[in-house]
């Protein structure tokens, strides 16, 4: 039988607020254990939560970026469970009155067709402490690090609209892009600022039944989410084919073995309204000031890049995928660099170079001014592409202008025909067999000869001129 999967994602995103959610401790879980703590986030008796206004703003911006309706009234509940990472016995979360509802994200499915994934709700909750398991001599011990306790999260719950691993990964990427645009969170699965849980069930194709679902956790990359979902779909299909029922439970993705494994169920009950965090009333006035702060979002920006700059669809999407990158790109274009030429050099040269050096467009010494100067010299044929790559590499280590780097390295392109003619004549004399090959119809020999000539010019000659001159001197090879 043909099955299709019904997938809903629950995504926890750690907001990039400077402080925790209910106290002024720094929101830096990675610091020395238990450094960022106070009576509130340690939940010492008598302390009371003090909800951060900035967290509310960051969370609301995330809700807006996900096309949600921000609710007029939202409130916190106590979600009860007992575990040493939550020593007060309940987590402050929003169950009855969430921050935002009814959002959506548009993705592209496997067939290149647009598809809308609906978002059920976005709500705020505090993170719990982190357990560290060690041994003291031969005794296993568990330590609790409260740096993460009380750090601000939003949980984004999708509707079960996702059908394939591809759609799940596209949805996560789109969600990450949107939230990064409004600067609410980093959304990195690798560094733990985004955690994805997948609810997966399968059913016969074209059915509209909702079958028993299985929750899968512990994926540490977007790629792994795809792998885990694919594995789980096959596992459930095999189980059904064997006549076994799927039972409601939670499984963990094992990244080493590439399988999902059953875990013990967690005890969880309905939430109780919390009387210590004030109810949040969202006024139109406040919401409008936030909406006014929304930047041009990636969808609209890609459309504009496509229309105004003549980029291809893919190029437009790539250049708008990150807000800083899109701003870098536009700054370069605004310095009179042809847009597609800029995209080509950003995508194939600049981005890999940044990645190699662990830099970002916003903090690299290769500023938009320096990069534009380089591209404009390349465009005017003052240097060739090889030299440009070399200059780019040097721009990372010096503060000089591209022009100065070029002069210093003698990298200016030789476009003087008499100088090139000397080289071309020498190459023809020294490579008789290649010239014969060329005359015998081996077109590849031309490439070889151009290469030798470039080498002889120490990379400085204009390759277009060399080719033209070689062709003229050797005549037509047919």
């Amino acid at each position, binding site marked *: 039988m043909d099955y299709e999967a019904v997938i809903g994602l629950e995504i926890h995103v750690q907001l990039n607020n400077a402080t925790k959610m209910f106290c002024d401790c720094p929101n830096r879980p990675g610091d020395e254990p238990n450094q960022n703590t106070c009576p509130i986030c340690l939940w010492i008796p008598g302390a009371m939560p003090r909800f951060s206004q900035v967290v509310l703003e960051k969370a609301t911006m995330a809700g807006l970026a996900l096309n949600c309706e921000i609710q007029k009234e939202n409130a916190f509940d106590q979600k*009860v469970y007992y575990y040493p990472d939550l020593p007060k016995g309940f987590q402050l979360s929003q169950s009855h009155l969430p921050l935002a509802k009814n959002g959506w994200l548009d993705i592209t499915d496997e067939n290149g067709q647009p598809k809308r994934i609906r978002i059920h709700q976005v709500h705020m909750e505090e993170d719990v402490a982190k357990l560290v398991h060690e041994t003291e001599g031969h005794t296993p011990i568990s330590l609790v690090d409260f740096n993460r306790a009380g750090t601000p999260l939003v949980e984004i719950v999708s509707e079960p609209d996702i059908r394939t691993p591809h759609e799940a990964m596209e949805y996560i990427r789109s969600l990450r892009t949107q939230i990064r645009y409004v600067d609410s969170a980093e959304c990195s699965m690798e560094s733990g600022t985004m955690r994805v849980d997948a609810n997966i069930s399968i059913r016969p194709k074209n059915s509209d039944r909702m079958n028993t679902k299985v929750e899968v956790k512990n994926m540490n990359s977007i790629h792994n989410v795809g792998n885990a979902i694919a594995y789980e779909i096959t596992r459930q299909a095999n189980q059904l084919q064997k006549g076994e029922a799927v039972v409601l439970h939670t499984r963990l993705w094992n990244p080493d073995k590439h399988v999902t494994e059953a875990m013990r169920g967690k005890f969880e009950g309905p939430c109780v309204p919390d009387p210590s965090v004030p109810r949040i009333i969202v006024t139109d006035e406040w919401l409008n000031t936030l909406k006014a702060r929304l930047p041009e979002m990636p969808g609209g920006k890609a459309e504009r890049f496509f229309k105004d700059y003549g980029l291809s669809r893919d190029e437009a999407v790539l250049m708008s995928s990150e807000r800083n990158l899109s701003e870098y790109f536009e700054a370069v274009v605004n310095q009179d660099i042809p847009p597609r030429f800029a995209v080509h050099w950003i995508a194939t040269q600049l981005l890999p170079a940044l990645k190699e050096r662990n830099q970002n467009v916003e903090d690299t010494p290769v500023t938009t001014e320096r990069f534009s100067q380089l591209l404009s010299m390349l465009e005017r044929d003052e240097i060739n592409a090889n030299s440009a790559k070399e200059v780019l590499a040097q721009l990372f280590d010096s503060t000089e202008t591209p022009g100065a780097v070029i002069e210093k390295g003698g990298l200016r392109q030789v476009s003087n025909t008499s100088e090139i003619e000397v080289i071309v004549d020498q190459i023809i004399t020294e490579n008789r067999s290649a010239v014969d090959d060329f005359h015998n119809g081996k077109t590849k020999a031309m490439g070889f000869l151009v290469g030798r000539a470039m080498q002889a010019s120490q990379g400085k000659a204009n390759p277009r001129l060399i080719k033209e001159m070689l062709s003229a001197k050797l005549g037509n090879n047919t």
Partner: protein
Amino acid sequence: MNPDNYCYIDHSPTETGENGTLKGKLLSIQPNISVRGWPTEAGSVALEGFRALEDATVTERLREAGAKITGSTRMSELGFGLTGDTTPLAISDGDVDIALMTDTMGETRLAASIAGAFGFKPSYGLVSRYGLIGLVPSMECYGIMAKKPEDIGSVMGVIAGCDNHDLSMPEYQVPDFGHRGKIREPKVVIGTVRECMDTLDTDERKAFNETLSQIRKMGLKIRECNLTDFDLFKTVHNIIGSVEASSSGGKYDGVRYGHRARSTENWNEMYLKSRAESFGLLIKTYLFQGAYFQFENYSAFEDACRIRARLIKKTEALFNEVDLIVLPTRRRGINAADTSTIEEVYDAFSLTLPANVTGLPAIHIPGSVFREENDPGLQLIGPRLGDANLISVAAALSHTTLGGK
């Protein structure tokens, strides 16, 4: 000071205020109200050895106003009921002028009725709860007991008002506690609640009617009001209170402070054993009951929340007809200081807990014209934020008619 009545005594209490309104006043607290460094066990083994890390906002403000905090009296476990509570003795022995305690279901008013003093519970949200180690966050608040009503007014003048540590306090105009002891509006209309009167037995009604006639003699008008579902206050408090206790009481886990069970197999067992060894039977029963409603009968909890909202509306609507509501404070033949089951606790506090369910201010007024055992007491409930007027009326009543001071 009889040391048996105290779990901590400060022999050289310090105050930080020079010329505060509470200059020279002696004040006791309970060990669920935070004073930095003091043992703060809230009457429970679950907090054994715990010392407060910070001052509660109230203790800080009281000291700044010149009050001397002389010690903390013994209290019931986590402030639920009055069993084992020695606060009435601190007042009746004359150890202190003012006793600060918590009021979850009427403990301050009942304790005052035992001590022959005034017992006041402010409007919910008027006094910061920061530093209160509580059990039922939506019902409980600080309560003030004193022989002199003007002391209650002075304390309220000091502790009421916004606090950056307790953001759950709504924004409002803090009542002016400056004109104490006088009825500012001479034509106060006081309402009795028919549904409450119906629950009194013959002796209770006789005694209470006697009190009402004394009030009438003062020239105050008394009018009968209707508050249907009055009997549901008790059920609503019981269900919501136990669910909140079970949920928020989770922080008393016996790991970072308090009693932690020895030799357990794993951490699940550690929690179970520590909590089993820590809580007394009454609290344990209450927590179990709350867990039952939360996990097995949640719709009953939701119903209780809905009924609570309705009761608040209905009670507040009464203040369109009358200025204050009058109720007895306690039931005859039930000793609030000696209760051992949930039912007994709720029976003992059935007349005071409506003010906790609604969050309205309420005061017990001591009277000396009746024999103690027959006296159901006199309790006034005011509109939200009508705290200052309520204290003034209570003072006036006791001064002129009831033979108080």
